[in-house]
């Protein structure tokens, strides 16, 4: 099992008072530093994740033909505005863990590892909206780093709808305002959707627009992740020599 994250050097202050752009520009993603087991710094939420290929999981639950994916989500006490201690098994953690599990079961090629269990642990260090998306992106990097075969990257982003405009990557204030919010996890190369979840009500005429905004933002995240991973692979390949 491999250990947690190395923080990037500069602190980030997210300014949510400025007028909100309708969709995320690629340049507004802070550089994502990729050390073993990922630390992801997206504009609003930071999360770190690691994978453990623990096969000391319960034998009773081991599946004979594929791997079991186990996701655990936890939130640091200092992640929100008020310091709040969250007990480990509470409802939000379980629900988030279940969503992550569904997402990754769709993306990981589980048939290649029968009778084993893949554990993904995600911890949110700073939460300002879009925590599910940050978790998925960080976990993708961690799974990739562990060498577990996946169909494709899984890139996620949240989106909402305010005053006739679709907004991507909502902050906490925008989420708390009570409008409809969509969380989308996408496999960019094929365009397949791993998970699509929505809260509150949205008129079906607007669905297309919101989905499009989320998809575009996810692809932008993919561009950044792709570049970072390629750089890392390139570096490692040069160091290993021929």
């Amino acid at each position, binding site marked *: 099992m491999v250990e947690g994250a190395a923080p990037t050097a500069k602190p980030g202050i997210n300014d949510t008072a400025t007028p909100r752009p309708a969709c995320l520009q690629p340049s507004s993603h802070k550089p994502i530093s990729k050390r073993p087991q990922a630390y992801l710094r997206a504009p609003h939420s930071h999360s770190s994740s690691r994978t453990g290929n623990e096969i000391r999981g319960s034998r009773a639950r081991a599946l004979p033909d594929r791997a079991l994916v186990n996701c655990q989500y936890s939130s640091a006490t200092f992640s929100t505005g008020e310091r709040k201690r969250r007990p480990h098994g509470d409802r939000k953690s379980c629900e988030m863990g279940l969503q992550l599990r569904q997402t990754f079961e769709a993306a990981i090629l589980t048939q290649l590892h029968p009778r084993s269990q893949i554990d993904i642990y995600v911890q949110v260090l700073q939460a300002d909206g879009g925590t599910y998306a940050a978790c998925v992106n960080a976990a993708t990097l961690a799974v990739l780093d562990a060498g577990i075969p996946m169909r494709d990257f899984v890139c996620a982003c949240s989106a909402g709808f305010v005053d006739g405009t679709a907004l991507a990557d909502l902050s906490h204030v925008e989420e708390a305002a009570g409008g409809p919010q969509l969380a989308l996890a996408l496999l960019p*190369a094929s365009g397949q959707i791993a998970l699509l979840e929505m809260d509150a009500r949205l008129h079906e005429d607007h669905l297309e627009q919101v989905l499009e905004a989320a998809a575009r933002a996810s692809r932008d995240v993919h561009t950044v992740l792709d570049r970072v991973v390629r750089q890392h692979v390139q570096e490692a390949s040069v160091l290993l020599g021929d």
Partner: protein
Amino acid sequence: MALEMRLPVARKPLSESLGRESKKHLVVPGDTITTDTGFMRGHGTYMGEEKLIASVAGSVERVNKLICVKALKTRYNGEVGDIVVGRITEVQQKRWKVETNSRLDSVLLLSSMNLPGGELRRRSAEDELAMRGFLQEGDLISAEVQAVFSDGAVSLHTRSLKYGKLGQGVLVQVSPSLVKRQKTHFHDLPCGASVILGNNGFIWVYPTPEHKEDDAGGFIANLEPVSLADREVISRLRNCIVSLATQRMMLYDTSILYCYEASLPHQIKDILKPEIMEEIVMETRQRLLEQEG
């Protein structure tokens, strides 16, 4: 006790100092490797919509018609004949479960274990009851891979007298992809220690035994105190191996020896500092290149 503190700094890419580009075809999951259907797909790839797509991040390797992607970092995949160093995790009815940094625990059958004295006989019920006397949970062993099961689990054997329980020494865990495959993995280094380079990434550094005992069969743990000079050599070797692994260099007896010699001017505890690590490994690289060229 003097304490040293460092602030985090941005990591500068190590390959810049080497100044060369990789000549290999590097892929990430989701990349199309080829649309030619004539190829057979190997590890690290899958077929999707008439195209061969990569499923791990690494370099593409092609052998005639077989395409596979070798991932940067994976768990150990056993192959028959590999030497591994493992730790016993469970004692079961007629076998031991050994942890070898692979996806599933490896298995050491009682019938594959050599008995004390090197005798060959059928294992009886008494042998089964005495299993814990041979190997307990937490013991380290060196063994060879006998067979690989269909789901990837590995079956080990210690049929030769050179394998068996390991006594005093230091274990270093690195990625399996860094251990070079060679004819022999048991090395007696001239600096005064011996090393076992397990293919699974577990490296065991131990003091060179004075005389080879052939009758013990690898069960009696040698618990005599190790001298200070030996302990220093072993610590230095361990730090050298860790620094080679951090800088992603292939590990084999020559590279470890050169790194040891390059580190002699520094104190043992300084070897792990990033700048000294880089310096030592750079020197090792130079020497290896000169030796080859």
